């Protein structure tokens, strides 16, 4: 399996706070990788570094064989990195279809083609019936799906999902999981940040656990959840196996 995304010795400092220290991870083409860890582990920071919201203090980020460290978010999107936001950022005064068209326009400049494409993506995400509704009128779970649809419309090679499954009802979360599987089947690589382990573990091929800004453990989900270091990080020393 070839490597699609790689971070090499990435550091991020905010004043005296070290949010990421020497993080080197890689994501292979076609994988679903979960980025997990307790609150404050540096997941969102790493996520934002990969998406291009801010440049790392030190280290480099490689995507599809190219150094993208100095590129802005828009350029990275052009290269094939799509993302969603943890706190949904819909274009509230626009309709659902228009939201998705904004994403589709990066690959299709002919309006009719972009509109068609946006409609197909909405259908794929199960939002087609809501196409002409204002984004502000959607319920929270639909807004999450709109985030995914918008990112998919940019035809990404890598889709970054920032806690898309958190805060949903069990039924909504289940449809969300199915959507992520469907996305992978279309050949898109997925890197997802999740806080809640039981949702992501059955879904991902590989899990990377961050703690205190560093990579703690990396491996198959079934191994990772049993790792004493991970249990300690999440629950404290008392619950560690064999402690």
């Amino acid at each position, binding site marked *: 399996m070839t490597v699609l995304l790689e971070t090499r010795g990435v550091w991020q400092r905010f004043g005296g706070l070290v949010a990421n220290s020497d993080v080197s991870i890689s994501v292979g083409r076609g994988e679903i990788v979960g980025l997990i860890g307790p609150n404050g582990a540096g997941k969102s920071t790493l996520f934002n570094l990969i*998406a291009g*919201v801010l440049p790392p203090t030190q280290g480099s980020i490689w995507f599809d064989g190219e150094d993208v460290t100095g590129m*802005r*978010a*828009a350029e990275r*999107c*052009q290269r094939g990195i*799509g*993302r969603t*936001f943890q706190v949904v*950022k*819909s*274009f*509230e*005064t*626009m309709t659902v279809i*228009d939201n998705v*068209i*904004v*994403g589709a*326009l*990066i690959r299709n*400049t002919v*309006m*009719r083609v972009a*509109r*068609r494409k946006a*409609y197909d993506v909405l259908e794929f995400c199960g939002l087609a*019936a809501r*196409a*002409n509704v204002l984004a502000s009128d959607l319920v929270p779970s639909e807004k999450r799906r709109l985030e995914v649809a*918008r*990112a998919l*419309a*940019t035809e990404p090679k890598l889709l970054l999902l920032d806690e898309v499954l958190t805060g949903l009802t069990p039924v909504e979360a289940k449809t969300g999981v199915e959507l992520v599987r469907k996305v992978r089947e279309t050949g898109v690589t997925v890197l997802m940040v999740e806080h809640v382990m039981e949702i992501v573990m059955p879904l991902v091929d590989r899990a990377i656990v961050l703690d205190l800004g560093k990579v703690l453990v990396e491996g198959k989900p079934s191994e990772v959840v049993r790792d004493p270091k991970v249990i300690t990080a999440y629950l404290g020393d008392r619950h560690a196996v064999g402690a």
Partner: protein
Amino acid sequence: MDKDFARRRRRELIVAFCLAAVAALVPLFVKDVYVQNVMVLTLMYAALSQSWNILSGYCGQISLGHALYFGLGAYTTALLFTKFGVLPWFGMLAGGVLSALIAMALGYPCFRLRGHYFVIATIVIAEIGLLLIQNWDWAGAALGIDIPVRGDSWLKFQFTRSKLPYFYFALALACVAWFVTWWLEDSKWGYWWRAVKDNPDAAESLGVVVFNSKMGAAAVSAFLVAVGGSFYAQFVSYIDPESVMGFQFSLLMALPAVLGGIGTLWGPVLGAVILIPLTELTRSFIGGSGRGVDLIVYGTLIVLISLALPRGLVSLFARPKFFWRKAAVR
């Protein structure tokens, strides 16, 4: 789905064409010069407000300094004509291009500012422009420029006997501004601008280069406003700094759009048709300069509209369609 959208777009064009045709016939029945004058101003402000709406309504960068571009258009045309004998048509184009360039030069630092800070910057920059012109002797300083009358002709765009040519030009300008907006609305730029207004971070993540989008909107907007300024200089044939670059012009460009519906296709037209005649009427009714009273009228209107219809007067038209659409889905 595609068809519905195409049909809606076509319907907008047809409605606009019919309205323009009706407007073109009005002077055949209305011979009163005062009323014609009000109609010219109404059409001009409709065009200006439509242009302002591109940057401030669609792209969300609220400018209260567009008087700068209006004045630049007026001054470029008047100076080129009086000093170098350049025909106003070329002056109009030159003023437009100059304004677009200046808008981008100013946008370069200012578009890094967000929200209120951007608005304040636009006000301050327009005031600086006003002060510069007031102290520029070659351009007539505070006295302004008297555009010499060389007889009625389309070539020199001067008409002393009739207001009709100005009326038709203003109508054409309003149509052009409307059509440009209509065309941009369903283009890459239109979607990018609205995305930038609603959420710049999300827009950037979808490949929208936010900064360039704002620059594009500023250039188009400034160009069209400057053409309006050139027209105004020819129409009144005498300009001074206060009368083309004063803060009230910035307000008069923003208010029709805000009143009618900011960031909408029809808002500026609707707003101008209501606001401008009302302004002129209060002025002539009160007598004297009447300045101040018209401002009280705007203020009251804006407060009432923003309380009752925060999306502007166009939302009155949109509402029944919304119900109809909902019914159709069920």
